[in-house]
């Protein structure tokens, strides 16, 4: 093999550059964000359930409210009734407890690189900064 030293050295450098995103981030990992809940009390379901299923629940609520005019959610865990509402000022809605959108919604959504389009139309609550 001609120029074996140069080729092998070049390959090592090439592999090093290509795999940089993998080894370059070792030790500098970003901590998993913990959503900040400002209010006490319980959500419509347990926190674990909401963490795993809130996206699906919001989709179901949306279809039920818009299409079937079914606006009341009965909690499976607590048996209480809740209004199916994401963001409605003054009334019970998701955002009336979780009014800190940046800390509550965005921190995890940014971490997992999902961009829900809720706020293109729904009005996010005003945050006291």
């Amino acid at each position, binding site marked *: 093999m001609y120029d074996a030293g140069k080729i092998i050295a070049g390959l090592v450098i090439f592999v090093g550059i290509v795999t940089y995103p993998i080894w370059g981030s070792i030790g500098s990992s970003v901590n998993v964000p913990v959503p900040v809940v400002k209010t006490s009390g319980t959500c419509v379901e347990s926190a674990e359930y909401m963490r795993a299923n809130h996206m699906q629940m919001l989709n179901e609520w*949306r*279809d039920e409210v*818009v*299409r079937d*005019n079914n*606006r009341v959610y009965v909690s499976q865990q607590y048996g209480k009734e809740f209004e199916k509402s994401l*963001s*409605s*000022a003054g009334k019970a809605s998701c955002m009336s407890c979780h009014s800190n959108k940046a800390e509550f919604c965005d921190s995890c959504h940014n971490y997992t690189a999902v961009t829900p*389009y809720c706020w*293109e*139309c*729904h*009005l*996010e*609550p005003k945050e006291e900064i």
Partner: protein
Amino acid sequence: MDENRRDFLKKAGVGSLVGLGVVSAIGVIAEKEGKASTVSEDTSGTRLGMVVDTRKCPEGCTICSEVCHSIHNVPDFRQADRSPDLKHEIKWIWKEPYHNAFPSKSGAFMSESLLSRKVAVLCNHCKSPSCVRVCPTQATFKRSDGIVLMDFHRCIGCRFCMAACPYGSRSFNWQDPREESGKQVKGGKDINPEFPTRERGVVEKCNFCAERLAKNLKPACVEKCPEGALTFGDLNNPNSEIRSILKSNNTIQRKPELGTGPSVFYIV
């Protein structure tokens, strides 16, 4: 397989006879179904509708559309010189000259008052809505109480519904309906936080205040009309206020000849 010309022709003949029989049978069945669908008005269930008394509607008054457009965050697109931007206009309820609202009921030698009259027009919440038939994503649909609604989440902005609607009741958001700040709709009004805005690329129209009906409130235009020119109710309930008005007045619908079955009636 050994088959001669004679056998082949026999089989082909029998096959074509069977085929003809099936086709004519389908024709007979289809005809029966077609006849069944032309029976008189079905009044089962709820069918929400409205009566507009255009005689009571004062000239120049636009309270109904102002109220509707402000609670539903309908943007008011303006050109650089602040004149209305008609290309991007979005409207849920607005006033139209009589001959535009009722082109098939306008003729020669009409009364002066009709010629100059402006008629409040809105989505007719048709009995058989053509917009619902053409929507490829079922973003627009007819609710069991007769309201033709939009699910803005599903609208892909193809505008088939706008082409299908014979009343021009639908508007398209060519531009972002919100100001850059995100706190106001275009035109400078603050966003009503009780109701979402739309985003660029979706169609919108009157929803008969479905969000208010859920709270047992009347549509905002009906509630706020200072002259009581608008009456809202269940067309299928013979004891409703709207039916008593329909019974005692001569009313017309917009373009009923198209067969959409408008649920908005007009006293002229």
